């Protein structure tokens, strides 16, 4: 008892501090709520994107690892699928024990447009050392049923219930528009949650069934090996070199998952950067709220200092208030991020599936690290943006009387310094962008520096804007207009932050908008000149932009000889090893068109089109040349069926189909170097006298019994391509909207706090005879003016951003050259958006101020 009572009680100033803090927070609930909201939205966007990205990655890795099992290495063929005779040679001829054949692929379940599943063909008798599918201890796989002649498959219970299948159910697997009926023999039994995730979208079958379903007789995707010791690897390397055909190579198992991870690296990084933008806007918001709270309590703090409160105590007071707001905001943000992540993960998956590979995400991967990161980011950015106002608070002079004008005069005095800082930041940003080479993350830091430079310049520009507006508003609205305009300049410390936040938010959306539009227009133009045939035929694939399915020779014959078809050419997409990396190889037959201008980024000084037919010359796509630094005249080592062969690069062509890059070869050279008679797509020209639509119908009818094919007119294909394009930018659009939301909240709080702070000033005006209507008009006019200034400022800022996104970020992420297209609509939207935000932000303060009792407002706090 005595001990307790003897505990030192909080000091009087300490109690005062806390009480003042509580009182302040209670008095401005709306402001605090909005600040919390701002942080929350910022954090949730970051967390949401992070979760979506990491879930996609985890799902992919888990399924890769589940499929790879305990394999350390794999034998693959550089020129495509590996011949299954190689497996016999490895096992019987070379006596390599720990080897398992694998045939992988994708199929659609039940109907040609059904959900995509991954197929895994195994030999259950060779697979035990690699994967536990074929029955661990007591696993009880019915081998007779599995490989004894009936088309049986296995899948995880969750997968089966998703497709409404039970043990014994028969269903169809569609591959390249052909269906094979299979029976669900038994369930795979995931041993834990991770394995369940890995198995989620997998259908396992005997290799004989897999070859039949995928119509791939004689083919394997790879031969898995277990080479646990360096000596094993050495021995195997020697065997591969001495005893196996030249196109076979030994690859480490991790290489596979890392290659595919690299595919989406740029994509994920860009999403993360965009999500951080929302947080940056959120930081402005916190900065604004805390500055406002400090300014409002300047006199109180002065008095507290007079009572003996130290600077340090004041500093921590402000910081702890911010921590409270930031903490609550971050917690809500993390929770919101999880919810947002569930939405975003669908969009992210869709894009990955459209562009790169098939991945199915079973559930959001709620890593504690991602959540903690969000929390830390939210709180950290809050604290960071509170340091300036907190330091400002400690400067409160020991005094009982203080006015903001002192602050205002200080910011005016600071203007030159701010402007120089802006210049410094701009130069730094420029240097970072220039010097960062291909590093996208550093490029984004450079862009951030440039954004901050814009923020530093904002006060000066706001001042300039208010001076320019003064005569205009004065001319239209008289004294009220002039007052509104000069008010902006007078409360520069508030208004500049509000305008800066709004400018950054709006310019970010403008920048992204212009970038997407430029991209779309470029792709549209490219589609126009690259889709030159009338009708395009391809088997339904699983990844829109990377279709290496094949058309059956029967269907090909039917199409080529159909009525109304005057000529046709084929395209084959194969995956081969170029300079030691799996690469898409596009094989084309000569097409009738003349040289297309604008098709090439660079060409050799000889006729590369002729050279590609007569000797080993290929061309590479722009992203390929960017990724690998390939130039015209360079040589590529391509693994063919006859072993590695050097090909000369004759041209670099524009291509927006894949950011992974592709190598293009003529069919005649392909037929010499590869044993692959198949085609992935056909393009046909229709006689001018025939209607394209009629021919499309006829082709559909003629092929329907042979193979289910996508037969599309030029116009439809272009439409479908653009749809996929738009779909891939859905995430970007969502992020853009969320950034606008944060900006909007920011502007709302900034303008509201500004106007709330002017209560006394306005009360004086009221006392001097201004009507509530006039007060309302002044306030509205002022906020709208600020919106206008922000809107106008966001145009150059947005254009700079979009230029950087197009020519720096896009170039460096994907290697594409885009046209820079400025749509006046997007710029107009930006100004309108700023004005609208400002107008909405003025509603509450206007309403509350015009209602306020002038006498109350005048009373000192």
């Amino acid at each position, binding site marked *: 008892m005595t001990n307790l009572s003897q505990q030192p009680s909080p000091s009087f100033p300490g109690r005062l501090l806390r009480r003042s803090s509580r009182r302040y927070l209670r008095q401005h609930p709306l402001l605090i709520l909005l600040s919390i909201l701002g942080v929350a939205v910022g954090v949730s966007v970051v967390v949401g994107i992070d979760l979506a990205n990491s879930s996609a990655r985890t799902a992919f890795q888990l399924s890769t690892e589940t499929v790879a099992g305990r394999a350390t290495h794999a034998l693959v063929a550089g020129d495509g699928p590996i011949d*299954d005779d190689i*497996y*016999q040679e490895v*096992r*019987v*001829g*070379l*006596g390599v*024990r720990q080897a398992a054949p694998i045939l992988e692929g994708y199929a659609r379940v039940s109907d040609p447009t059904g959900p995509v599943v991954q197929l895994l063909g195994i*030999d*259950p*008798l*060779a697979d*035990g*050392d690699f994967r536990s599918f*074929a*029955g*661990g*201890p*007591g*696993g*009880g*796989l*019915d*081998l*007779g049923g599995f*490989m*004894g*002649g*009936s*088309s049986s498959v296995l899948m995880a219970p969750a997968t089966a219930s998703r497709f409404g299948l039970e043990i014994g159910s028969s269903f169809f697997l569609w591959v390249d528009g052909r269906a*094979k009926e299979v029976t669900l023999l038994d369930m795979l039994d995931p041993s834990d949650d991770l394995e369940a995730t890995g198995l989620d979208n997998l259908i396992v079958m*005997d*290799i*004989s*069934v897999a*070859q*039949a*379903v995928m*119509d791939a*007789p*004689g083919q394997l995707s790879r031969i898995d090996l277990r080479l646990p010791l360096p000596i094993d690897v050495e021995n195997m390397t020697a065997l591969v070199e001495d005893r196996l055909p030249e196109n076979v190579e030994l690859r480490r198992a991790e290489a596979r998952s890392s290659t595919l991870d690299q595919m989406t690296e740029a994509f994920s990084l860009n999403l993360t950067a965009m999500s951080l933008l929302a947080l940056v806007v959120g930081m402005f918001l916190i900065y604004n709220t805390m500055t406002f709270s400090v300014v409002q309590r300047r006199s109180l703090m002065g008095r507290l200092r007079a009572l003996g409160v130290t600077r340090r105590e004041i500093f921590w007071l402000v910081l702890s208030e911010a921590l409270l707001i930031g903490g609550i905001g971050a917690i809500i943000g993390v929770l919101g991020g999880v919810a947002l992540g569930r939405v975003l993960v669908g969009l992210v998956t869709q894009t990955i599936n459209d562009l790169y590979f098939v991945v199915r995400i079973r559930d959001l991967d709620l890593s504690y690290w991602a959540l903690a990161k969000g929390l830390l980011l939210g709180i950290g950015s809050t604290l960071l943006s509170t340091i300036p106002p907190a330091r400002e608070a400690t400067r409160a002079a020991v005094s009982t009387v203080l006015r903001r004008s002192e602050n205002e005069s200080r910011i005016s005095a600071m203007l030159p310094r701010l402007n120089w800082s802006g210049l410094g930041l701009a130069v730094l940003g420029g240097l970072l962008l220039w010097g960062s080479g291909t590093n996208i993350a550093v490029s984004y830091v450079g862009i951030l520096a440039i954004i901050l430079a814009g923020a530093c310049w904002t006060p000066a520009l706001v001042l300039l804007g208010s001076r320019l507006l003064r005569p205009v508003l004065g001319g239209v609205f008289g004294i009220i207009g002039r007052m509104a305009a000069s008010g902006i300049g007078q409360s520069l410390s508030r208004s500049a932050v509000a305008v800066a936040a709004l400018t950054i938010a709006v310019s970010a959306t403008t920048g992204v908008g212009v970038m997407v539009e430029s991209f779309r227009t470029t792709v549209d133009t490219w589609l126009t000149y690259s889709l030159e045939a009338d009708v395009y035929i391809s088997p339904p694939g699983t990844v829109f932009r990377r279709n290496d399915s094949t058309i059956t020779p029967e269907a090909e014959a039917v199409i080529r000889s159909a009525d109304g078809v005057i000529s046709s050419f084929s395209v084959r997409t194969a995956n081969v090893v170029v300079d030691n990396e799996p690469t898409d190889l596009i094989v084309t037959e000569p097409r009738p068109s003349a040289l297309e201008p604008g098709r090439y980024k660079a060409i050799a000084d000889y006729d590369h089109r002729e050279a590609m037919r007569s000797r080993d010359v290929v061309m590479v796509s722009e992203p390929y040349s960017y990724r690998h630094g390939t130039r015209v005249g360079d040589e590529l080592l391509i693994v063919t069926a006859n072993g590695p062969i050097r090909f000369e690069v004759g041209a670099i062509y524009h291509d927006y189909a894949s950011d992974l890059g592709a190598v293009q070869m003529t069919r005649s050279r392909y037929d010499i170097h590869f044993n692959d008679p198949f085609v992935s797509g056909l393009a046909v020209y229709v006689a001018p006298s025939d209607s394209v639509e009629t021919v499309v119908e006829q082709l559909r009818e003629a092929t329907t019994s042979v193979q289910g094919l996508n037969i599309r007119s030029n116009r439809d294909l272009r439409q479908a391509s653009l749809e996929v394009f738009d779909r891939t930018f859905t995430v970007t659009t969502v992020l853009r909207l969320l950034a606008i939301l944060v900006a909007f909240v920011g502007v709302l709080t900034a303008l509201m706090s500004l106007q709330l702070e002017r209560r006394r000033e306005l009360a004086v005006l009221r006392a001097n005879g201004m009507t509530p209507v006039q007060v309302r008009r002044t306030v509205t006019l002022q906020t709208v003016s600020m919106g206008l200034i922000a809107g106008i400022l966001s145009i150059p800022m947005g254009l700079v951003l979009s230029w950087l996104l197009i020519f720096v970020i896009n170039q460096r992420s994907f290697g594409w050259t885009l046209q820079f297209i400025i749509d006046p609509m997007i710029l107009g939207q930006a100004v309108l958006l700023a004005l609208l935000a400002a107008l909405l932000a003025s509603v509450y303060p206007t309403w509350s101020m015009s209602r306020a009792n002038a006498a109350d407002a005048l009373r000192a706090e």
Partner: protein
Amino acid sequence: MKYQLYMALLGLVLTGCGVQAPTKSDTEPMELAAAMGGDTLGYARATGPQLFNMPSDLGAHPDFKTEWWYFTGNLFSDEGRRFGYELTLFRSALAPPDVDDESAGAPPDSAWDTRQLYMGHFSLADPETGEFYAFERFSRGSMGLAGAQSPPFRIWLDDWNMESESIEDLFPLRLMAEEDGIGIDLHLGRAKPMVLQGNDGWDPKGEGEGNASYYYSYTRIETEGTVSLRGDRIEVSGQSWKDHEWSTSALGPKESGWDWFALQLSDGREIMVYQLRRKDGSVSPFTSGTLVLEDGSKRALEADQFEITVRDTWLSPVSGAEYPSGWRLEIPSEDISLSVTPVQPNQELNVSVRYWEGAVDIGGSASGEAITGVGYVELTGYDTPPTDAQ
């Protein structure tokens, strides 16, 4: 007398327990009767004696459910070192022939498609060190990964190989197996004539028509070659024994295991005897044997003509099973009295189904003369605790 063992093993394989790394010994052994179940419908049956058609009958009989090619032998180096080896390849049909109706029809367009499963066991006993090495393999009978053919005779599973060096004849024959640095590369040359077991090669195993196998043996084959022992290559020579048996029907539910003896006596004769043990401890009436004379002619031995007495036992430290380890074999009608002693106690194969298959030494007397010999003994069913408690 591999018959029941292999039915049991293949039964296990068919129910999936066999498909795992052979190093895993944590699997509970299955009860034999359960393991030996399996549908025999649709397969060919051994319904009566028939003429063997050599050399094609040396190869596979895929219409029967089960088949194996079994080699064992005792090998000696010039320096007096000795080894015992077993190399057996089994074939098991996963589905009966000709069930190609529409629903069960296999996708015909894959060379991997097969109904035949192959299993291999390879063991080497090294009495000098007391080490015993045993390996197991599985493979499908397609894509050239495993298979059986004749002529020319070749049975293989991966790089384990039994291959005749002549086009028409079984011998000379080369056996090759190697795993983890333990291997044999043996040339099997001159052999005593083939012995048709049972009734002209038709060997009833139980009650009911078709519960029998086709079974022939080569009871003495001169053997020389090398044994590889973790880098050491040791020249050896000795004698091998070959069995080839195929059938469809399964062992009855009453049997718990069996003891099988293949003995090569120094007087040029061989003895093959087996006794089936029942769960109630009694000996099955289908217990029998064969005495092969020096000229290759044979005399059948009925159950009441011989007596096997256990002289010693050995407790496996791995499985905890207690095996007989030393016997006395009396054949009063032939005036033969033998003691049979394992060359080393540990010859237990820890594979899908644990069993003991080991080289033995023989001493004793025949017609009053002292006699020696070598051989192989197989013991199954000692791994499972007795289940006669109902």
